[in-house]
């Protein structure tokens, strides 16, 4: 009996493909006996193309999947299901070659057991390339194309039994189709054919691939009727299909187990996606997992399999791809990719280009300046005090919780506490030691970072070498080190790396994640830099619109870190206070604009004024000396505008301008309060950015000078070393504010007592220049660096607790009838310490008065003069509880914030972990799209 073939052509928005497809069908050597044209609610001219071709066009109500559209068409057209009735399933892009149907029929006629025959699918745009030929599944059930995108050299031209063939061009026995109920409605596109073929095999039929039948295809089934699909959406569709199959195919007993693992597996696989730099796939993965958990089509799919099954699963298992084969395929793919990516950029090498030498020089200068800290356990002075003594304490000061500052308050910790916790965890046996290490390594680290950054933009070694020297010996950096401005020091060390990461983030997810972490660290260390960095980021987004999704992610970890503090500060209405320098508030004079232009964040000129003072020269001489020594750098920077490469020199000099503006602004914003006085924000951080721009300009200029860069590089480098001489000398002679410390914050007597009672209070009374008295309450061994809070340092309104403390202090400093003993008991204050007063007559009078009344108070026993000042002890302290509140992990809010921040940072870290050469799903496109385009942008518009 002659086989009767009904071709079913399903089209959806296929106007681009239909003319060729229809012509190809018409040109078949063995014409189909009938043709069902199905229009699945197209919005283009598909419908008219179909009706022009002749024959009835069946229009589906609403959008239907390929399988549903076929089912609908068969239902509408009716027709028998005789033994030799065949269905030829075609999509609008499946243009068959003239002999395709004949070859397929030839294959099925000789083997009655064959129920499904699939053609060799060729690329639409390249007829000599196999797009797909046969599908199978791995041992874990993932579907695999047996062949994809291979040049057709007849290497697969052996007709063979396959587990499955693609839907497009599939010739299927109509009776089998009807018996199996067609494609599973739960699989709208991907794996629908695979599932159908597997069921065919379970029903006792065979599936064959017919290499002689060649049908074109414009893309995989999920792209049917779509222009493109993002990698994430593609992953979602495939994963959803796989999970549907898993639930539908599994033995009944295993279904609950599979169901329970759906969401955990989705989360786990999402993390793997992050590590593999596929953040776009995370959403789809989770959606697929959750969708599968509530997939209502599974029971009917399972029923359908049960009803039609004749053979056992071994009939399918025989076709699975083994793990070894899978591994081999991957290795081949990786090797092919490595060949494709052999891009190499010429640049100076670290050892050959002088980087190693410069870092070595920075190491030596660093040791000259801070070598006296070798063997020291902690540093203090200026903005530095030791850190908490254990890592656990260090981390307990992170997040939203209780701060033992003043009488204590509930609020957000400074983001800087996280930086300190990370830093202190490096030397977990003695967290304060990490700061010593940082001081010893600061100069070489800065040199290394700057060299690395500059080398990425240079072809020769001169620019990076000068940049490294200029960055390691940057006057604002040395001033920050000398003054103990740890935040500015960390920001300075990280800035070049941050800039490099931001530049590269436009193209790489891993770099975007690295940039995000560095951005958070820099923002937390020097919040005053945030506006400038934000401007830079926006500018870079405008310059690289394609990188916007990655660049947009960069501020997220910083935002997560700052969010609680922002809420607290905005609640007070003081958003400028967000810019306050974290750490110990230090009183400092605001430098003039002229000094800032010379890179001096303090009122001094890098120590030149102090160095030249004994010579009795006029006051202008140090200015001129510094100006002359800085001139080569400034000249080189500005010269870059006159040389080729202005696309680089203009942005980098704008960065310098931004930095300068930041520095000027920070000297005009005094939000941090030190006792009775407000102190401007440390200008060092802004000046570091300013310096970055200047050095960057010089690097561009040196690079443009090419082989003539040697002399200017030497002149600039040596002049910069000379500028730093006084700062290095004062560092090595120990005349800086930062000095070695015993690690104690309070007198040893207090520390000894407080080690057994950590909530013991010590009241510090400091006579202020205006005759007032500043009060600080320390708990336990003292307020460590990580306990400092800008929220406390910028408070401009007194709380009830503050007033209570003021009452106590005021009465302690007076002859008074106040019940001091009761209040000391209530607040668990055991010590009063009176440090040296400010150097004014009023302060000394207040000091005398306070000392007299403390001396005259019979409750207090004078202990004597200590390193921290004169000390009194309240020996009659009753046992009690100091006022306290929930630690960050104790309140739901605090815990929630910590978990939220932890998740953000964990995910960013996963994304930042370097994973080389991983497989990545390229976004699917119609094969007519531009090849080069698909190579560069792995993320297209997500529909």
């Amino acid at each position, binding site marked *: 009996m002659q086989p009767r073939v009904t071709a079913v052509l399903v089209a959806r928005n296929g106007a681009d493909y239909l003319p060729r497809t229809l012509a190809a069908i018409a040109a078949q050597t063995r014409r189909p006996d009938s043709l069902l044209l199905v229009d699945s609610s197209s919005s283009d001219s598909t419908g008219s193309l179909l009706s022009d071709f002749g024959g009835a066009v069946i229009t589906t109500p609403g959008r239907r999947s390929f399988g549903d559209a076929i089912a609908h068409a068969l239902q509408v057209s009716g027709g028998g299901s005789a033994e030799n009735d065949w269905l030829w399933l075609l999509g609008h892009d499946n243009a068959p070659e003239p002999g395709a149907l004949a070859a397929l029929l030839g294959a099925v006629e000789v083997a009655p057991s064959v129920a499904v025959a699939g053609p060799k699918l060729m690329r639409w745009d390249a007829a000599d390339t196999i797009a797909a030929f046969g599908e199978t599944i791995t041992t874990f059930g993932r579907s695999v194309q047996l062949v994809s995108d291979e040049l057709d050299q007849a290497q697969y031209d052996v007709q063979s039994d396959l587990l499955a063939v693609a839907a497009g061009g599939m010739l299927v026995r109509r009776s089998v189709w009807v018996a199996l109920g067609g494609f599973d409605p739960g699989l709208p596109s991907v794996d629908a054919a695979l599932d159908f073929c597997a069921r065919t095999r379970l029903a006792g039929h065979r599936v064959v691939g017919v290499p002689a039948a060649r049908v074109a295809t414009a893309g995989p089934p999920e792209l049917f009727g779509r222009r493109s699909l993002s990698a994430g959406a593609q992953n979602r569709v495939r994963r959803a299909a796989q999970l549907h199959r898993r639930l539908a195919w599994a033995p009944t007993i295993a279904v609950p187990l599979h169901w329970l693992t759906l969401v955990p597996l989705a989360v786990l696989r999402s993390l793997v996606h992050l590590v593999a730099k596929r953040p776009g796939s995370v959403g789809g993965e989770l959606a697929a997992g959750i969708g599968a958990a509530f997939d209502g089509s599974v029971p009917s799919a399972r029923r359908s399999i049960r009803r039609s099954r004749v053979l056992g699963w071994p009939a399918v298992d025989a076709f699975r791809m083994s793990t070894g084969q899978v591994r081999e395929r991957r290795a081949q793919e990786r090797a092919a990719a490595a060949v494709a990516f052999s891009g190499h950029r010429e640049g100076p090498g670290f050892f050959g280009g002088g980087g190693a030498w410069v870092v070595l020089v920075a190491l030596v200068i660093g040791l000259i300046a801070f070598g006296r800290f070798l063997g020291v356990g902690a540093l203090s002075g200026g903005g530095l005090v030791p850190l908490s003594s254990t890592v656990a304490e260090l981390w307990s000061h992170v997040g939203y919780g209780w701060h033992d500052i003043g009488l204590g308050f509930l609020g957000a910790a400074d983001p800087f506490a996280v930086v300190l916790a990370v830093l202190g965890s490096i030397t977990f046996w003695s967290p304060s030691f990490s700061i010593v290490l940082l001081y010893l390594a600061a100069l070489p680290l800065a040199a290394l970072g700057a060299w690395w950054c500059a080398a990425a933009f240079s072809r020769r070694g001169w620019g990076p070498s000068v940049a490294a020297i200029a960055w390691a010996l940057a006057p604002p950096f040395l001033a920050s080190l000398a003054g103990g401005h740890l935040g500015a020091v960390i920001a300075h060390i990280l800035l070049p790396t941050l800039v490099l990461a931001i530049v590269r983030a436009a193209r790489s997810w891993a770099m975007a994640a690295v940039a995000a972490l560095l951005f958070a660290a820099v923002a937390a260390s020097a919040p005053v830099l945030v506006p400038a960095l934000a401007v830079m980021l926006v500018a870079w987004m405008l310059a690289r619109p394609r990188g916007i999704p990655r660049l947009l992610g960069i501020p997220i970890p910083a935002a997560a870190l700052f969010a609680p503090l922002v809420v607290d500060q905005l609640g007070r209405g003081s958003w400028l206070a967000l810019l306050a320098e974290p750490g110990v508030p230090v009183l400092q004079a605001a430098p003039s604009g002229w000094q800032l232009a010379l890179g001096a964040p303090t009122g001094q000129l890098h120590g030149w004024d102090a160095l030249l003072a004994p010579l009795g020269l006029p006051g202008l001489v140090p200015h001129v000396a510094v100006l002359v020594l800085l001139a080569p750098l400034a000249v080189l920077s500005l010269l870059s505008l006159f040389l080729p490469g202005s696309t680089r020199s203009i942005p980098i000099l704008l960065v310098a*301008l931004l930095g300068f503006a930041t520095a000027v602004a920070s000297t005009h914003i005094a939000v941090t309060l030190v006792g009775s006085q407000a102190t401007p924000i440390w200008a060092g951080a802004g000046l570091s950015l300013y310096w970055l721009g200047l050095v960057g300009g010089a690097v561009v200029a040196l690079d443009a000078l090419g082989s003539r860069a040697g002399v200017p590089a030497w002149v600039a480098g040596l002049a910069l070393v000379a500028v730093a001489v006084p700062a290095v000398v004062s560092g090595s002679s120990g005349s800086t504010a930062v000095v070695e410390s015993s690690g104690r914050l309070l007198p040893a007597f207090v520390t000894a007592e407080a080690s057994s009672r950590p909530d013991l209070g010590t009241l510090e009374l400091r006579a202020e220049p205006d005759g007032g*008295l500043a009060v600080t309450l320390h708990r336990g061994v003292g307020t460590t660096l990580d306990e400092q809070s800008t929220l406390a340092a910028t408070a401009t309104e007194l709380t009830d607790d503050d007033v209570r403390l003021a009452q106590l202090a005021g*009465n302690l400093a007076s002859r008074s009838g106040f019940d001091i003993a009761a209040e000391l008991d209530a607040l668990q204050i055991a010590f009063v310490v009176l440090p040296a007063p400010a150097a004014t007559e009023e302060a000394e009078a207040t000091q005398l008065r306070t000392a007299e009344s403390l001396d005259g108070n019979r409750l207090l026993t004078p202990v004597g003069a200590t390193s921290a000042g004169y000390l009194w002890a309240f020996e009659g302290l009753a046992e009690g509880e100091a006022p306290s509140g929930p630690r960050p992990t104790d309140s739901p809010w605090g815990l929630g914030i910590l978990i939220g921040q932890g998740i953000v940072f964990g995910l960013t870290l996963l994304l930042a972990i370097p994973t080389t050469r991983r497989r990545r799903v390229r976004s699917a496109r119609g094969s007519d799209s531009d090849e080069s385009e698909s190579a560069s942008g792995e993320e297209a518009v997500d529909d």
Partner: protein
Amino acid sequence: MTDIEPTGDAVERDDPFVDQPDEDFRESRAPVTVRGVAIVGARVVTGAIGIGVAAAAIAVAALVPLPRVASQAPSELVVPVPTAQQLVCAGPLLRLSDESGQEATQASPIGVPELASDSSSGAVTSDPLDQSDAGSGGTDAAPRVISTPPNEADPSERILLSGAQSQSVSDGDFVGLAAADCGVASADVWLAGGATTVGRTTLLTLNNPTEVPATVDLELFGENGPIVAPGTSGIVVPPSGQRVLSLAGFAPDVESPVVHVTSAGGQVVAELQQSIVRGLVAGGAEIVGPTQSPSLETVIPGLVISGGADIEENLGLGPGFEDLQTVLRVFVPGEEPAQATIRVIPEDGVGTGTSFEFEFDAGLVQDVPIPDLADGTYTVRVDSEVPLLAAARASAASGDGTDVVWLPAAPALGEVAAVTIAPGPSPRLHLANPTTAPVTVELVGADGGDDSEVEVAAGAAVSVSVDPGASYVLSGFDRLFASVSLVDGAQIAGYVVRPPGVGSSPILIYP
């Protein structure tokens, strides 16, 4: 359809941050083309703009006054909870022997002084110190602590407490009138007065009214400079106790002692008691209160010269009578000598004063005679560019009888002060106005004192007769010096008026 894509960076040719071969640079070496000129021109313009922007930015930062945002440190003015105010009165004159002249190291009291006191709240309690080197602890002959409790209803009410005592003795070696105010305990006291030459006995009394022991260190200075002596440091004065020390024990045969008393722990009220015996004749007794600590402007109001003719006569009697002369005792601490202008201004503009320049050596005490002053009352002003301290000694004589008075430099009074007039003969209150504007001082009396108003011209001084034992509240001025004198024939005494204690003034706290 899995595909492979490396995560490494693809190199984009149009990336400005990735090196481009410097084609255009080489191009500029090539023969001049229109495009080359345009490029070079554009660069020159860019560079010029860049330099301009840089110069403008620096100029704006350096020259333009930009607005500043500065937070105001929150503060709380804490008014200390008032406590009982305390003043310590000097107690009776003491002698270094018992009544029979034995036990030459044991001080013993001579009688009991007359004490007057008053508080603006009316309630004054008076208790003796518990311990005394004079063996009078707890008795009527002990120095007394007068105190007044705060107003319970309104603790912020400022209560003014004042007291003064006087004692007229004529008992063997002791003759004369001694008066003193009751003082606030302090940790830092300068005393200028007395002598330890032959016939002159000077005792240092340290009264500690507080609840904690006071550890007192003494610094002694004489006409030859600092005096180093054992036992001057670590003198413990027990709570509510009095120590009596003979100055001669530390500094024998010193004509012009100055004592600097510093205490740690409790605070003390320190005074000197001087008695003079010339030959066999008692020549006067006096209690010397603290003088103003070294300052640039020193004012001694109410220096009374009385019986000048008799003094002249007695001065002629020979050695031993020199200290009848009026002198100004000046000490310049530190290393720098002081060039001082000394002005002795007659009160009420009557009589003639004197004015002279004097250079004082640093580190030693100098007694500068002020001769030829007519009988009357004078205000002594010492102005110097180096801080110094001063006190004046004057004498009264009537026939053979003499008495001595030491007037320390008065502290400046601000706005309000209270004074109690010691019960004694013909007391007068001296008011010196150091300002350049006349003031009207209001006197509100209590305990028999009458209210009155006293005009004091700018830079002048006046005195008013007041009632013995009465108390007055002085007000209506910004800055004033005041003292009280008691003169009757060969009896003279005086003391200065001190501002109310500052221990309980409000204090600004920055939490």
